[in-house]
């Protein structure tokens, strides 16, 4: 149902990504919540995001920081890239609450990939109950028709992931 690849990138490449994300020159953009569901406001104060790439017309976007995700794309080898977005979220105070199950998009050959930039007690939960823990330098991929949700973290000051959507 899903594939996990640990130590996805060489350590030096992973460290560079982490350093850029936590550096003072990388722009983040505030969004009210991660899945567009207003009731999540009860537990979430929103997140910071950065879109590296978005193919949808007319909102096409290519970040000047796209080079940062190229090492991952060399491994993923997507046939058609749809979106790459980094998310940085603050912790919540209640224990590990799971957000809304959702689809990023749906397509017969659609794939979702999540790269975990740092380790924390948050996780990705799939609709069948499988849990992928947030471990730094881990990559997980699964079909885009599998609903998934975030289990919010509590133990670090920011949780960073990069979310990939593509067609195989």
């Amino acid at each position, binding site marked *: 149902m899903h594939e996990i690849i640990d130590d996805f990138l060489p350590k030096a490449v992973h460290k560079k990504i982490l350093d850029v994300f*936590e*550096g*003072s020159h990388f*722009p983040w953009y*505030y969004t009210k919540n991660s899945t567009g569901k207003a009731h999540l406001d009860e537990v979430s104060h929103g997140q910071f995001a950065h879109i590296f790439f978005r193919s949808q017309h007319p909102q096409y976007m290519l970040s000047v920081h796209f080079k940062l995700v190229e090492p991952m794309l060399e491994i993923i080898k997507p046939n058609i890239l749809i979106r790459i977005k980094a998310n940085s979220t*603050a*912790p919540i105070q209640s224990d590990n609450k799971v957000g809304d199950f959702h689809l990023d998009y749906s397509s017969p050959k659609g794939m979702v990939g999540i790269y975990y930039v740092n380790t924390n007690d948050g996780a990705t939960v799939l609709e069948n109950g499988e849990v992928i823990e947030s471990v730094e330098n881990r990559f997980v991929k699964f079909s885009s028709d599998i609903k998934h949700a975030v289990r919010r973290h509590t133990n670090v000051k920011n949780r960073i992931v990069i979310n990939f959507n593509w067609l195989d």
Partner: protein
Amino acid sequence: MYENKLWIFDNIISVDDQEHIKNEFFNKNFPWFFISDITNNSNSNQKRPAFQHTLIKDSANNSEYCEWLLPIVKNSEDKIKFKSERVEHGRAFLQLPLNIEKEDCDEPHVDLNYKHLVVLYYVVTSDGETIIYNEQNKNNNDKYTIKKSIKPKQGRVVIFDGRYYHTANQPSNDLRCVINYNLI
């Protein structure tokens, strides 16, 4: 002129302008930059991160959003009948609650080590009070005593002699968003 002074004014700009700033800052096109410690103190053990947008850096315009925020400075100067030579720094900060168990405040600090005036504008109403201490030119062994605690309220500005050590409580329930100017 402003030595040892502290002022608080509500609605320093019109409500329409307050809303405009809030909407612009929380717009998904407004860039924020990660900082690992909001007090910008390399010696701090707290390492409480936040997101920052630098409007003015070393007296130079650093953002396309710089100009339309300057009425905050001008109106503040008018209120206290003071005209600055220049705005040295202008920075916006956005903080999300960090789930910090120990409810101590951030590291007390001064923004600059020379004479300046602080103009602190609250973009939104939130928790995370600003605390201004009586102490100036502090020695390490001195204890801090609170001069004034100010609750963040949309449209409010607190103006004070920058020599006063100050800090803030971390927000625990709300987004905290402020604009901090240092005037010379």
